[in-house]
């Protein structure tokens, strides 16, 4: 290598041309004046923080880590990574109890699931919501995701022999949401994959991907999760040479990108094996596999690209897959943040900005007036359903619904 043939810097912060394009696409900046904006919080601030950590600004916590700045950046600066890793390095404040609770999705899930009817009843009560609002500052407008009585893991484990009989195999990183709140999505995936002659396996014992831990300032815990997950995924991906599919775009982004870039956990040998289920299915179909669809399925579907799907750049797979279903009238919504950003929108102090961020998307949904909004992210689902009243389904569930028996 010759001197200066290439230049490089941490998360590419030196590539920043100060063009300010990122600020035009930052959903937070448009609604929250306390946030300094991605350019200042990211590459500008990084130069000062390198001089002295004193320049770390606690307002960086307002970043939702949606990564739209990174998608917009003409210079490939990892703006959101810069902001999140600055928080990891310099933020010495202890996360609040509320943030710990919101972040511990799998822990809460495993506690709540056995008592699902009771928990769902309690968290659904107005009085509980008011109490959560007052004590923990979880906004009263939010509805806690319902907990399912039986976990998806338990359901699939009982079918492991039947799944093992299929000629093709994949492993499924189901994530907390499918496991505790919405096993139906997992079952839909199994249905679609089985229709492709593919059996679904569990990982040895997955943990929450850790995305909520990262954004809530609990990176040490997140790193433990990451190390564990990488080792169990390695067993599937390297030892058994399986693809590892997932139905949540945030889980996939975390497993593939945040582990090495933010947490310093090496996943280079397994990264390419982790894919969104929609990409996996699309590629199978492209290679000649076929799915048979119902003839009586007629739906108007509007597809919303979740922020992390946008960052992965894989919205195209979900889109093309949905367009394959005969009888679907498809609209691609303008790619915009819904405002929830994981646990961000649950926090009382963020409720208003969260809703304001999403308004452009909500009004477009209202004007398109679809039967179903499709999207690959569970928190977008909650936000869009709460804010618009439209039903939101993962593309995999729509696919499953449209399959001929």
């Amino acid at each position, binding site marked *: 290598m010759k*001197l200066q*043939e290439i230049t490089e810097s941490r998360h590419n912060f030196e590539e920043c041309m100060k063009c*300010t394009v990122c600020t035009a696409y930052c959903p937070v900046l448009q609604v929250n004046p306390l946030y300094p904006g991605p350019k200042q919080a990211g590459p500008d601030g990084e130069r000062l923080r390198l001089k002295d950590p004193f320049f770390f600004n606690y307002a960086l916590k307002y970043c939702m880590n949606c990564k739209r700045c990174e998608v917009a*950046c*003409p*210079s*490939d600066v990892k703006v959101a990574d810069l902001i999140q890793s600055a928080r990891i390095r310099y933020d010495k404040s202890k996360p609040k109890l509320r943030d710990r609770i919101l972040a511990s999705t799998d822990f809460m899930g495993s506690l709540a699931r056995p008592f699902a009817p009771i928990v769902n009843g309690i968290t659904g009560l107005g009085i509980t919501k008011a109490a959560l609002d007052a004590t923990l500052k979880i906004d009263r407008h939010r509805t806690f995701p319902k907990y399912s009585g039986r976990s998806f893991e338990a359901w699939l484990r009982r079918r492991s022999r039947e799944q093992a009989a299929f000629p093709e195999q994949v492993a499924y990183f189901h994530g907390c949401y499918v496991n505790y709140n919405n096993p139906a999505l997992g079952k839909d995936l199994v249905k679609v994959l089985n229709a492709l002659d593919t059996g679904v396996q569990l990982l040895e014992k997955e943990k929450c991907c850790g995305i909520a831990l990262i954004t809530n300032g609990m990176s040490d815990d997140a790193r433990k999760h990451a190390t564990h997950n990488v080792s169990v995924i390695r067993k599937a991906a390297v030892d058994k040479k399986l693809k590892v599919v997932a139905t949540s775009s945030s889980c996939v982004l975390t497993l593939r990108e945040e582990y090495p870039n933010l947490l310093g956990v090496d996943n280079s040998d397994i990264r390419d094996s982790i894919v969104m289920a929609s990409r996996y299915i699309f590629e199978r179909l492209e290679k000649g596999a076929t799915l048979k669809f119902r003839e009586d399925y007629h739906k108007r579907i509007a597809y919303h690209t979740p922020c992390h799907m946008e960052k992965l750049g894989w919205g*195209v797979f979900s889109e093309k897959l949905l367009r394959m279903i005969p009888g679907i009238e498809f609209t691609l919504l303008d790619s915009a943040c819904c405002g929830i950003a994981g646990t961000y929108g649950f926090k009382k102090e963020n409720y208003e900005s969260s809703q304001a961020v999403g308004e452009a998307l909500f009004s477009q949904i209202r004007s398109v007036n679809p039967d179903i909004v499709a999207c690959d992210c569970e928190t977008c689902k909650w936000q869009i359903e709460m804010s618009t009243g439209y039903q939101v389904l993962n593309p995999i569930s729509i696919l499953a619904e449209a399959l001929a028996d």
Partner: protein
Amino acid sequence: MKFNSVIIGGGLAGLVAGISLQKEGLSTAIISTGQNALHFFSGSFESLREPAPRIAELFSEAGIGIHYSEGVRLMPLGTFREAALSLDDVSIFPTSHFARKALIVGVTGYQDFFGSFLAEGLEKKGIQCRLRNFSLPELDTFRQSAGEMRSVQIAPILDRVWESAVREIRVLLKDEDAVILPQIFGFQDISVPGKIRREIPAKVVFAGTMPPSVPGIRTQRLLKRRYETLGGTYLAGDEALSAHVHKGTVHSIVTKNLDSHYLEADNFILASGGFFSKGMKSNPFQILEPVFGLDVEFASDRNDWYDPDFMKDQPYMGYGVRTDSSLRAIAGGEMMENLFAVGSILGGTRPELGSGAGLAIRSALAAVDEILKTGKR
């Protein structure tokens, strides 16, 4: 994934090519490495000096208002420059003496609109000027982060409260026959600039600001929406890394996000921009085109890349990839059968096609025609 044409670059050239091909029923994908030069667009298609129905149709179908007249436009620092084809945001005057008296209105705390420069420039042309600022409670809230009070932060707010802004401006207006405002209206709501023109009883002129350009971002968004509505696949934030080429024919592109999933096509259009957009890269030793390794002409002595005077034309800005008369790109002296280079990556190598936005549109349309000529494979 297989398309008729894969376009590398999602700026003006790439989108014009993509929209035109989709309209002809050809399937396309655009790979866009982040946002592009449209975000710094002045609003005037420099070097497009002819009324072009084809371009007018393309823009109006996307919901973008453009107009054609020959004259001059007001530049952000108070000078005038020749203009013809422009966005509706940009006023074109037969002469620089377009008014008797002008009221120049900025936004309190907004540093990227150069009122005093405008006033000085206009007064030189015999237009009397008065400078004022306005503010609104909604903008004041935002001044808490005045650190970043930029066009793109103010514009979304003004979309919502433009009527209050008009009221403030009308209060300031005395006997002036022109009002100069910063070009920060109509970020999402494209109807706002027109409404402001109607509501203010004087000639309203929007003068450009420091980038990002509000009309430019709006143009980008509308073109992209038009492209997607026509069924185009816009891969935002992805990057073309390399290509599979066999005997002068490109077969597929490898991208950063799609990794092992190659993008195949019959035709490829390289609209990846100049140095800023990394269509071309440079290091101390050479200037290169990173995806296909196309031939780039540049001086061998690095000293000759620059003129030491900032104000003079810079030789490096003339560098571009080599093409034949049909814009087919050339690598190692050999013509690439199905690869067309368009837009700023041509640098100054095709002066007959103009420069800037004009070059982007003309070359993109020329490549589209060439693809259509070779038949819809």
